[in-house]
């Protein structure tokens, strides 16, 4: 197993390199000039055109934007080897300093969403399959289709309107009440809406996949054999059916992790959640390429690691799968 993990990590390095090249190229191709936007306010100062052009040149030189793209890319890469992600063009802080405090809030909201959507999705999906064509099955089908078809930004606004604006139950923004400071209850309260919205789509998919996987499995001969041996229905379902049904579900959960990251960009923006996603949106708007590169690098690493993790989990769920 350890050899397999090392091999997979080594294969990831050239993949990451290719990802950075693609992202950098896309940023370069995107229209927009960060310096022009940065100096926008100065146009109101009745400057001489020559002064303005000179100021743009100074800023371009200062931020290294006067260099051709390939040199900037290799400089960035060079810094990366020294574990330096560079400086933000707009905020002029190191990217590491900007990203570090954002990681925990994003992990918090994503982990909550993953746990919630996995638990609820699998439980409801399993019950749906066992009680096929019952009211619960129909209800879960409706809920899951709604979850899949309603975009999460719309759901976010809807939840803010209902739970925050109309009912006044939950806060609509931020990670904690600024007057209270950071408290466990405060963060938990603020996390309910964004985590719920973020998990909704994943939960819907989990319900559907668990239901269909369970339906497949409970029709298998070995389930009938287990029943005929006189095992209780609970043992049949949990020990024989559920474990086998989990293999495709785990694959789906792993694949949706990356989509969850994408979803968090929108959710963090709508709920003013101080995570990585919100930072990334700002960076894209500002064409702040060091921050965009860092964000995408993190996503790429998470994608690769989550795929590796799924492969490892397979071997625990299905003892037939061996990597060495």
């Amino acid at each position, binding site marked *: 197993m350890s050899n397999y993990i090392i091999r997979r990590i080594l294969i990831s390095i050239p993949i990451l390199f290719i990802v950075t090249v693609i992202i950098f190229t896309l940023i370069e191709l995107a229209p927009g000039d960060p310096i022009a936007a*940065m100096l926008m306010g100065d146009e109101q*100062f009745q400057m001489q055109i020559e002064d303005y052009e000179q100021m743009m040149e100074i800023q371009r030189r200062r931020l290294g934007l006067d260099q051709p793209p390939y040199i900037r890319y290799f400089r960035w890469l060079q810094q990366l080897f020294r574990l330096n992600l560079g400086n933000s063009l707009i905020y002029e802080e190191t990217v590491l300093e900007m990203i570090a405090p954002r990681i925990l809030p994003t992990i918090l909201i994503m982990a909550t969403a993953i746990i919630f959507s996995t638990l609820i999705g699998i439980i409801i999906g399993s019950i749906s399959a066992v009680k096929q064509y019952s009211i619960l099955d129909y209800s879960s089908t409706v809920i899951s289709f709604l979850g899949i078809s309603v975009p999460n930004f719309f759901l976010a606004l809807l939840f803010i309107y209902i739970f925050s604006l109309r009912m*006044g139950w939950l806060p609509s923004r931020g990670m904690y009440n600024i007057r209270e400071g950071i408290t466990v209850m405060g963060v938990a309260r603020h996390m309910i809406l964004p985590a719920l919205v973020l998990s909704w789509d994943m939960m819907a998919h989990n319900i559907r996949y668990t239901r269909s996987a369970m339906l497949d499995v409970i029709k298998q001969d070995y389930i009938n054999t287990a029943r005929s041996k006189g095992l209780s229905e609970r043992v049949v379902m949990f020990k024989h059916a559920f474990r086998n049904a989990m293999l495709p579900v785990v694959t789906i959960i792993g694949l949706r992790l990356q989509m969850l990251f994408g979803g968090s960009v929108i959710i963090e923006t709508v709920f003013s959640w101080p995570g990585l996603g919100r930072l990334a949106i700002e960076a894209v708007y500002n064409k702040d390429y060091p921050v965009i590169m860092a964000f995408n690098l993190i996503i790429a690493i998470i994608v690769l690691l989550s795929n590796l993790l799924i492969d490892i989990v397979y071997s625990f769920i299905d003892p037939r799968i061996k990597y060495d």
Partner: protein
Amino acid sequence: MIKKTSILLILLMCFSVVLLTSSAIVADNSFSFQISSAWGRFSNPMYYQGTSSQGLTFPLAWPPLVWMNPAGDIVPWFADDYEISEDATVYTFHLPKNATWTDGVAVTAADFDFTFHLMLSDTALEEGAIHVRNVLIANNIVGFAAFRDGEAERISGINAIDDYTFQVELIEPNYGFLLNLARYPNAGPQPKHILGEMTYEEVFQSYYMNDPDVFAGPYKFVEFERGQHVILEARTDGGWPHQQPQIERLYGLVIADGAPGVEAALEREELDFGSIRSSEVPRMSELDHLIIESAETAGFSFIYVNTEKIDQKARQAITHALNREVLRNIVQGDTGRIINTAITGPDWAVPDDLYDYNYDPQKARELLAESSLDTSRTLEFYTTSTEVNRIVAQFIQESLRQVGLTVNINMTTFQNAIEQVRQGNFDFFPTSGGVPSLDPHFAIDYFTGTGNLSRYYNEELEVLAAQGARTSVPEERQAIYHEASRLLNQEVPAIFLYQGAMNFGLNTRIQGFEFPISLFETTTGGALNWYIK
């Protein structure tokens, strides 16, 4: 057993829900207000980049000599008072004698002298303090050129006459100097006793630029969390020499303008003051703990037109083709005058004989026929992707279709839109905000110098702008700006739409609050009058 466990779990869940959804209102001596943007480096006013979160909070910790009160009037802030010489070239600021930094050291004219030299150094420009030089209109300060060219170590026109008298001498009168000083919060003092022994390069590398710990204003900067909030705490050491702050803590919460989060936060009393959407006014007005007010702001909405591609007749035609009253009602309700020029205030600056471009599609067609505009060409409308911009773009597209013009809407990022505008690849680019109606000096900037995104040039307007800046005599200023206003009215270098308007919500527990003429520029100018009921 299973039943018991299930009941226990259900009870636990119910208890958690009640606990988590319980109201989080804390009644304390604090005030929270909305700020809409978190752009820019936030550690020091040297890095001011024109964002509301900086503009509303920096002057409370680094007090400039003068500032704007909520009504938009220029008032002494750190200075006790100031004088302008008869020829309007020498500005003398008298400073209080009992002011100290939060570390107990006296704040003197030497701090301002040091700060102004630092602001105008090349190092500031090279270190990312990019806006400071322009705020002071540096080229018009006596001795700046020699200082910039390395011929002099000091700027001869900037002097600390004594500990409590600070003076700036201009080459020629420019009323904009005082206006800029009041409007842009870069010029608050930097502590000379901490930074004065360093070279300018060392100053910008020092901890103070990133993590300042000493302040001269009525409040201390406690915390800034990008995209989240700014926290300021009232000083209790008596070092602020003027009216003492009555609110212990100020919280600036970053919530985008027009977002539902503002209303929710006001309703839950997490936010004490913020703007609300006009559609929410009737509902919010029924809440006992809020005062709702709709008011015209000092900003306006207009559309830059590429004057190199669209001539005067066509611009007039386009203005006639728009039912601007309907557009205003859709965007901001019925508050905010329809405007026909850039100079929309104060009252003394607005002539009463301006031509009214009323909605008249027939007239628009006639004027278009007289213009040189090729009506078969598709006009490019560049704008950023906000809800209001989308509405404005679609309204204009449909209105111009009625008079035979085709408009292509490009909704893009701000950076790309600006790039297209600067390269002249656009026909229309909408904008709004600012404080043009506070003084015609601000308004005229939009169509002269580099502020002129319409690519418009009019020799007469340039002369009037220069004349207007050179005098502070009210009668002279009125005559100059009336003429400029008429010129802008005839020339229509932009499609003028309407004066801005905003609906504000204020928690009734806050007393002494004056509704600002600009939410994002003058709200905190009255901070020292605020107190809790």
